[in-house]
């Protein structure tokens, strides 16, 4: 009875109504996670159909099914959809759905950000799909090498569709990465220290951190290329001081970690599911955590192995070759941890385990061909042939799809409360497995026989006819296999046998939730004492349902969950989460307007959209917070903790830290690009250097330092509760940032060369623009804090917002000073007043 009443109370606060309004304003992580997974599956199906068309064309020599124009769109869209619209969103969805349940939390740290990411993903996908239906799809390959993708050689809108559509989707990925990082670090059940976290959370943590650092280089590359295409700033044009390889460096700086970003979550599924299937806890937990950390770290040092044939000196290639080989080691450590676990346990061939076995077989082969490709001479021979196509599908399908299928079948009872049909699932597996190997094993041979990739046809008599025909037949078997698995899952959802609550007798918390999953996940949150909470306490689920854990109550209609100290997992705060909101979808739509304005060349509209985004962001931040100090509140189980606004390092602060990390990576990639062009590109030194204006530069330095100082004084006053002094400090800081912005504009105007003539001018203008954007952000944030101070949202106990503004202001100051030095130094001799 108590459980029912508690359910009714919590549900009233957390529920999303089943109406149109409910669908559009929903911020619940379970719903959004499912949406991501379903949409990603739709994109997988679309990408799969494109693959079938590719294989149909290549089945026979001199086939006239499609011409090169269409074929180029086919493989470009296939690759782009699979990488950006399927693989990443799919695991994001899975992580969003599962993580709070695994960690014993009620939602993710920034529910509205999840929703915003979802709408960006949806709208960005529309741009790509509509373009494809209209026959305007990108056609430069999924890595869009310049100069082929530059305006001269791709004059149409096709490349812009890729650059803008994919960047739009990337915003969603970056949001998800920050969201997941902070949620794992801060939003767990009390007592769950880092060392007791389910291993899956470690994998997603490392993956999310890699995304924080990995995506900015690609966003930078896309921005530069789009600016080059739209306004003629020659970053990649070798006739005007640019360099085509700049694109490749930036792209693969993202692209190689991307491969691990896709693989790690899948490996996380293996590390979660395999121990349950063999009835033994994972052996070598610490080793596995260490090896994924190492993997995440080293994967950023390998990007050049995609560029072995670009004429980089052999010594450098040898270095990257060795590094690429070395990165196999952490993966082998994981493999042996899995093998040891199997050895200690009693493996059972249930369906998830069958998929894991398929993964072992396929991924192992893919990894081995990967090591072969890391050997430079071999790479020169097979680079850009069908061998590489085969390798990458062994890694991606073997290393991503098979484990994800295992995970899907493993968590199916969790997702739907039902079990699937034992026979149909196995049939699906075997068709997929056989079809896959038929298609791609042979493709290794085709590549060794010299068939390049991305060719729309070939002549008979090169020895390529039979292998291609076999590949094409195999790919149809593969598709039938996927279709069977899909039908199996749909049938299970509709008619499957009801499953017991914990059908695999697993030990992680997600199996303590009732089915269907309540809007608030757990009626009260557990105290976690071991790494396998369900094994120790079989009555845990029932105890939590009646409110025996933390937060088993509703406090003034707020959505609450527990926040913990990062390492120890001690209860540190009660995090108050926002409810359903229109802001995410509206903000995503306005962001979409920006991208469409860029796409169709309505450049006047783009800034308008950006201003609208700022206004929305203001409301977004303004709708949270509290006007009263509450002090520690009752958290259940006899413990008390403050609300998160009264904490120094609340989730929002950490969110800013990671957003700034991404931002700093963007900046460093930009500086790298500048250094690269200056040292490698033809046509340097440029015809004219910056003539730095001493007055403007000096004012910029003085004003930013003044802002730093004044904000600090204002913050100290807020800490001391002196509102008037605080307003004075903030006011001076605001004025100083405004002056700094004016000085920056003057600096650019007076001394910078035109951005259209030489890549040098283009790069320094981008650097100045970067500084300017950050001054504007700091300005808006300071104004926001000023306003919040007036409205009474800030007190000596409630300093979260000033602390966040402080981070951004300081970043803006440092970035501007670095920028100023970098831009001024080369032309310092020709300074002027």
């Amino acid at each position, binding site marked *: 009875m108590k459980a029912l009443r508690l359910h009714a109370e919590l549900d009233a606060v957390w529920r999303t109504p089943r109406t149109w309004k409910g669908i559009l304003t929903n911020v619940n992580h379970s719903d959004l996670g499912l949406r991501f997974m379903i949409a990603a599956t739709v994109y997988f199906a679309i990408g799969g159909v494109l693959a079938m068309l590719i294989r149909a064309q290549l089945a026979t020599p001199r086939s006239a099914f499609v011409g090169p124009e269409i074929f180029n769109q086919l493989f470009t869209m296939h690759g782009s959809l699979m990488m950006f619209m399927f693989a990443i969103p799919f695991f994001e969805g899975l992580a969003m759905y599962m993580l709070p349940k695994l960690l014993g939390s009620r939602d993710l740290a920034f529910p509205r950000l999840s929703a915003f990411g979802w709408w960006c993903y949806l709208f960005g996908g529309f741009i790509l799909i509509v373009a494809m239906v209209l026959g305007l799809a990108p056609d430069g390959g999924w890595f869009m090498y310049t100069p082929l993708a530059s305006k001269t050689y791709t004059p149409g809108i096709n490349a812009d569709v890729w650059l803008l559509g994919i960047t739009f989707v990337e915003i969603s990925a970056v949001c998800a990465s920050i969201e997941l990082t902070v949620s794992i670090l801060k939003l767990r059940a009390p007592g769950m220290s880092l060392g007791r976290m389910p291993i899956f959370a470690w994998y997603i943590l490392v993956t999310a951190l890699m995304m924080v650092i990995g995506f900015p280089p690609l966003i930078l590359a896309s921005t530069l290329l789009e600016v080059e295409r739209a306004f003629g700033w020659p970053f990649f044009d070798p006739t005007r001081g640019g360099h085509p390889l700049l694109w490749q460096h930036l792209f693969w700086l993202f692209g190689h970690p991307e491969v691990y970003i896709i693989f790690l979550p899948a490996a996380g599924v293996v590390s979660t599911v395999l121990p349950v299937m063999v009835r033994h806890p994972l052996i070598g937990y610490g080793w596995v955590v260490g090896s994924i950390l190492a993997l995440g770290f080293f994967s950023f040092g390998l990007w050049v192995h995609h560029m072995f044939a670009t004429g980089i000196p052999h010594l450098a290639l040898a270095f990257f070759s060795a590094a690429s080989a070395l990165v196999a080691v952490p993966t082998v450590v994981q493999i042996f941890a899995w093998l040891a676990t199997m050895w200690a346990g009693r493996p059972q061939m249930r369906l998830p385990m069958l998929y894991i076995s398929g993964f072992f077989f396929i991924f192992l082969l893919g990894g081995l061909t990967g090591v*072969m490709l890391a050997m430079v001479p071999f790479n020169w021979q097979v680079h850009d042939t069908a061998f590489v196509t085969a390798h990458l599908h062994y890694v991606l399908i073997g290393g991503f799809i098979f484990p994800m299928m295992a995970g899907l079948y493993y968590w199916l009872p969790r997702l739907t409360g039902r079990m699937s049909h034992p026979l149909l699932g196995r049939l699906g597996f075997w068709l997929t497995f056989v079809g896959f190997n038929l298609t791609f094993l042979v493709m290794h041979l085709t590549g060794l026989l010299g068939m390049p990739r991305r060719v729309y046809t070939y002549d008979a008599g090169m020895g390529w006819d039979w292998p291609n025909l076999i590949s094409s037949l195999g790919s149809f078997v593969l598709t039938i296999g996927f279709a069977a698995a899909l039908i199996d899952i749909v049938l299970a959802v509709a008619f499957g046998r009801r499953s017991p609550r914990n059908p695999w007798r697993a030990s992680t918390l997600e199996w303590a939730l009732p089915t269907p999953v309540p809007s608030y996940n757990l009626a009260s949150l557990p105290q976690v004492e071991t790494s396998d909470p369900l094994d120790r306490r079989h009555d845990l689920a029932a105890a939590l349902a009646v409110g025996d854990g933390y937060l088993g109550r509703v406090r003034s209609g707020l959505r609450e969950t527990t926040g913990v100290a990062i390492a120890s997992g001690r209860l540190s705060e009660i995090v108050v989460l926002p409810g359903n909101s229109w802001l995410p979808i509206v903000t995503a739509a306005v962001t979409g307007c920006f991208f469409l304005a860029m796409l169709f060349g309505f450049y006047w509209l783009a800034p308008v959209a950006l201003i609208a985004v700022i206004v929305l962001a203001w409301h977004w931040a303004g709708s949270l917070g509290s006007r009263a100090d509450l002090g520690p509140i009752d958290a259940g189980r006899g413990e008390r903790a403050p609300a998160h606004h009264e904490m120094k390092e609340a989730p929002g602060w950490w969110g800013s830290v990671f957003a700034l990390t991404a931002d700093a990576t963007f900046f460093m990639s930009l500086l790298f690009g500048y250094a690269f062009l200056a040292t490698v590109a033809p046509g340097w030194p440029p015809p004219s250097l910056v003539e730095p204006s001493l007055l403007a530069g000096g004012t910029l330095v003085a004003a930013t330092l003044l802002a730093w100082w004044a904000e600090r004084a204002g913050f100290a006053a807020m800490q001391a509760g002196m509102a008037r002094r605080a307003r004075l400090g903030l006011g001076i800081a605001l004025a100083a940032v405004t002056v700094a912005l004016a000085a920056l504009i003057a600096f650019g105007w007076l001394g910078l060369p035109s951005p259209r003539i030489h890549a040098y001018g283009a790069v320094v203008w981008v650097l100045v623009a970067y500084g300017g954007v950050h001054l504007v952000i700091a300005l808006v944030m300071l104004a926001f804090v000023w306003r919040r101070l007036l409205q009474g949202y800030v007190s000596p106990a409630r300093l979260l917002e000033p602390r966040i503004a402080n981070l951004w202001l300081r970043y803006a100051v440092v970035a501007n000073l670095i920028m100023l030095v970098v831009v001024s130094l080369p032309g310092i001799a020709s300074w002027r007043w």
Partner: protein
Amino acid sequence: MLLGLSALSFIVIFGIFILAWRRDRSRKVRLRLFLIGGGLVFPLVLLTIATVYGVALGERITGARTSPSLTVEARAERWHWQFTRQTGRGSVTRPNVLHIPAGRTVEVIVTSSDVIHSFWVPRLAGKIDAIPGMRNRILLRADIPGRYNGVCAEFCGTGHTAMNFSVVAHDADGWAAHDKDVLP
């Protein structure tokens, strides 16, 4: 070599995977054996061998120490190749067919006038990209006279598939005749 190492690793790892399914084995796990032996030592040894071998081979192929007997420029343009040879009496440019003497090492300087292409003669050497603004270098050596097919190996647009060329390696007599033919 590479294939052998790969096969060995596959057999070891997948072998253990298969053996783990046997029901009548001991379930004692020697942690060090698995994690240090299998996870660290095993891959490190094999990878070191492979990498050293690969780097040594690469050094030989790039031929830091061999001096070529002839230098030609290969210029890629959507969608064909121009091969230019500097001689004492001026330069000769020919489209899509590269003539070389058999049994001698030829240096090809590869560049492009528009987008990135890649110069590849599968039976003679690895590939090297033709990048506008860069002059890359590759060594070719055909020991047996004859005609070898070459392709463009970097996607370069709609004509990519058809951007073939050929290399004709002449024996000593043939080369002399060819020389006389092309030189004014």
